[in-house]
């Protein structure tokens, strides 16, 4: 998946699972992860929702190193396909 597809997937989850309004969500690569408007539990939940949506396993232990949206996308891309 390229960055655009990943950003779209994240936006889908924020709208469908968090009830956010699509028009209020702005996802830019250099924005901080805090710009998602989620607390730390919310970010981990987002990861789990993306795992389910994409059928992959993401290393949540590496979330501590994620500062920006672009870091988050790189983490997702490293996710392995679930067997």
């Amino acid at each position: 998946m390229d960055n655009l597809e990943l950003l779209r997937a994240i936006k889908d989850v924020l709208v469908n699972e968090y009830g956010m309004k699509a028009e209020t969500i702005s996802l830019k690569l250099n924005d901080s992860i805090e710009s998602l408007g989620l607390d730390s539990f919310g970010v981990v939940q987002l990861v789990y929702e993306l795992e389910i949506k994409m059928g992959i396993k993401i290393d949540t232990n590496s979330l501590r190193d994620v500062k920006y949206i672009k870091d988050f996308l790189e983490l997702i891309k490293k996710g392995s396909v679930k067997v």
Partner: protein
Amino acid sequence: MFGNVYFARYFEWQGMAREEFFKHMIQDKNYLMQNDLKLITVTAHVDYKNECFLYDDIDIAISVSEVTLTTAKIEFVYKNVMNDKVVAMGYQKIGFADKSGNIVHIPVDIVLGAKDYVKDSEINDFNKILSKLRNI
């Protein structure tokens, strides 16, 4: 006023009620330790409605709401058994972490144990969460 219950005591009672709730729900008091899990209190809140006093018997009813993959809300209603008055209402938002402090999803066993305490209005959302947890 002399003898009314100090405000902070209500948080202690929340803690006691929560521990009894988990003991009853999981049936295994060592579950958290055996699974290297830490229970995290994200938020704790109390609304004070009526005073209660020394030697009053207080009953605390628990329900569960707003269950997500990583957090849940435990709601408390404190009632004075002597006069049936609600003395306080409160809630906690809880989550879980592994032994390294990394946030993890709520264990399926705990969610299953909480099913009987979920508010009727939230049971559909709860079942969706349970289904997702089984797929993680």
